[in-house]
């Protein structure tokens, strides 16, 4: 009897504690530590920094870090803090991050997203919070067609790159082009744009699925179409075995891929099969890139800036310039980015009304694979 009495007391006490606890709040996190001094501030960068596709995104992160570090080293009185949020490229993980960043008023800008899906998912959140997004590598065309007022990208969209590929194919007098894509947002997007651009020269097409390893059916279709060019929209994982099996089966058509294949793993994974393939990329060759970026990147990370390294740097540089200019609120920075007009390391950066970087300023280069290196061929004019 006594025991149950004491237990009852305990139960009641527990309930009381819980109720009382609700009263004494200790607001965890989201402290609003405003920027110290007159200059500087805090920005966020999000993207797939781990996971399967991290290889494509890390150069951009490194580029952004480099820009921030160079600025912080040079300006002790104007420190910028950049917080990294890893989303693994998953929209479902990017959204809680967006809510976090949007709700924390100390964040004044966002670099991201790196993929189109996570950008699409988080754009409304950042817009609602008045936070400006500068995307280094989200290329899907319709992202800037949604009327979002705070989304900008320092990279050309799929349409621009597809246009450049079409120009190249026309200059090579391509007659029968075979199009393949991996049915991913990126690969299917760019291939669809290219289909529109090429018109009658498309001989046939096929879609493969991610993580596919054996391509008998596709290769047989290429042979049947008697193609002289094969375009593949997608990433390294499927492209490397595909091109190798193509060559093994005696297909001699020229292989062309977009910047998803601007990845040292592509020639390495294809073990010679990718020799002579053409890769287009909206990235400048090392000697053409503005200033000392390539050398600095090489010095800091021990490797060449891969895909989107320069875009990451440029995205961060926009915020650096904004802070240097004394902008201190989200609204001011949004306004500043809208009117940004300056030469970046990847291209001349000036945004159109919808947030796309001025298409006439986008520079796309073609590279030829020689061994495991990407040799710059020529700048592709946009049609």
């Amino acid at each position, binding site marked *: 009897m006594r025991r149950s009495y004491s237990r009852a007391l305990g139960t009641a006490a527990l309930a009381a504690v819980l109720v009382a606890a609700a009263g004494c709040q200790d607001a965890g996190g989201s402290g609003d530590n405003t920027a110290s001094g007159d200059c500087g501030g805090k920005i966020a960068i999000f993207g797939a920094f781990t996971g399967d596709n991290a290889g494509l995104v890390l150069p951009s992160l490194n580029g952004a870090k480099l820009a921030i570090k160079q600025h912080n080293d040079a300006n002790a009185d104007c420190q910028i803090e950049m917080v990294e949020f890893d989303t693994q490229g998953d929209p479902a993980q990017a959204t809680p991050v967006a809510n976090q960043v949007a709700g924390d008023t100390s964040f004044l800008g966002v670099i991201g997203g790196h993929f189109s899906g996570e950008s699409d998912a988080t754009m409304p959140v950042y817009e609602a919070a008045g936070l400006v997004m500068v995307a280094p590598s989200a290329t899907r065309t319709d992202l800037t067609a949604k009327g979002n007022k705070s989304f900008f990208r320092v990279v050309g969209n799929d349409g621009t790159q597809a246009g450049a590929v079409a120009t190249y194919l026309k200059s090579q007098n391509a007659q029968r082009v075979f199009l393949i894509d991996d049915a991913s947002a990126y690969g299917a997007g760019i291939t669809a744009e290219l289909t529109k651009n090429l018109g009658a020269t498309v001989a046939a097409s096929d879609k493969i699925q991610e*993580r596919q390893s054996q*391509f008998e*059916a596709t290769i047989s279709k290429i042979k049947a179409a008697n193609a002289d060019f094969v375009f593949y929209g997608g990433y390294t994982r499927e492209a*490397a075995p595909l091109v190798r*099996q193509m060559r*093994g089966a005696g297909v001699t058509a020229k292989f062309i891929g977009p910047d998803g294949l601007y990845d040292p793993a592509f020639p390495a*994974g294809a*073990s010679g*099969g990718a020799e002579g393939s053409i890769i287009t990329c909206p990235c400048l060759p090392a000697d053409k890139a503005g200033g000392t970026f390539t050398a600095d990147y090489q010095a800091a990370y021990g490797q060449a800036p891969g895909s989107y390294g320069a875009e990451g740097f440029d995205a961060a540089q926009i915020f650096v310039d904004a802070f240097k200019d004394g902008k201190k609120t989200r609204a001011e920075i949004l306004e500043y980015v809208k009117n940004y007009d300056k030469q970046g390391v990847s291209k001349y950066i000036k945004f159109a009304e919808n947030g796309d970087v001025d298409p006439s300023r986008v520079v796309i280069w073609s590279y030829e694979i020689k061994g495991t290196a990407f040799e710059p061929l020529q700048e592709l004019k946009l049609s």
Partner: protein
Amino acid sequence: MIPRPLSMQGDLVNFADLFGHIGQHTVDGLSKGAIYALIALGYTLVYGVLRLINFAHSEVFMVGTFAVLGLWTAFGVQNNPPIGQAIIFLVLGLIVAAIASGGTALAIERIAYRPLRRKNAPPLIFLITAIGLSLVLVEIFGLVLPKLLGEAVPSIFGRARIILGMPTIIEQKTLFTVLNTSITNIQLIVFVSAVVMMAMLDWFINRTRYGRGVRAVAQNPETAALMGVNQERVIMLIFVLGGIMAGAAALLWSMRFGFTQSSIGFVLGLKAFTAAVLGGIGNLRGALLGGLFLGIVEVYGATIFASNWEDVIAFVVLVIVLMFRPTGILGESLGRARA
């Protein structure tokens, strides 16, 4: 904007291509299915004896491909070596892959399944353990080893989860063309080796003393134990045999496709298991039949629709076959009938 009609846009059904090159597609399918069949043997052996899906078997194959890659990298093999060297590298590759895969399979048995067997755990527990093991192995090769050894051997563990190319050991050439169907040297090697390996295994199970033990345990563990068959040894044997077959598949894979990745096992394993079930799991010849059947179905399907419907077609065929023949095409059995 006019809405697009609700349709499988862009997926034209293409029978003309299929029937125009039916011979070629069949040959392609057979060479594709041969590798499924070799991996399927591992599932079928274990299932036939223990009635357990060794979900981690796909990773046994993956480890085999890494062993081949490691070997060839260690010897600095270049593309298209002279034929004598090529044969040496292939034989060495087979040995190394068989040891690596067989060892992995045995380790899995010892570490995970034996303790469970001792406890008489239900099949569900085995399956979940196997799934966990599979994840662990993928992550070890995809993440842990790259972090540990990335500096030391960058060509194997350079970056997490990266795709890794291997040198071309034998250049693919068309051997002969019959009836508009060309058959390449590699397709022939893959197909013939797969059938030979299978025949050897079949002989081993049906004709040797060890094989008799395996069949005895598969049919009735209690009686087999009474007759003096060491059950633990039989179980070890089947895991090792399955592993060796996966190792052989890994070598053929490396020769034919020349790349690997930590996550390569999953899809392939799933297909191989599908093949085993199609043919009748627990049945060695069924594994061969199921593998070849699945390979052909996939190539035909990818030709008629598009390659991105391949997996859907494979699984729909699996469900249809199981609905009409719940024990697969040839029925379940290792050796002879299970009462």
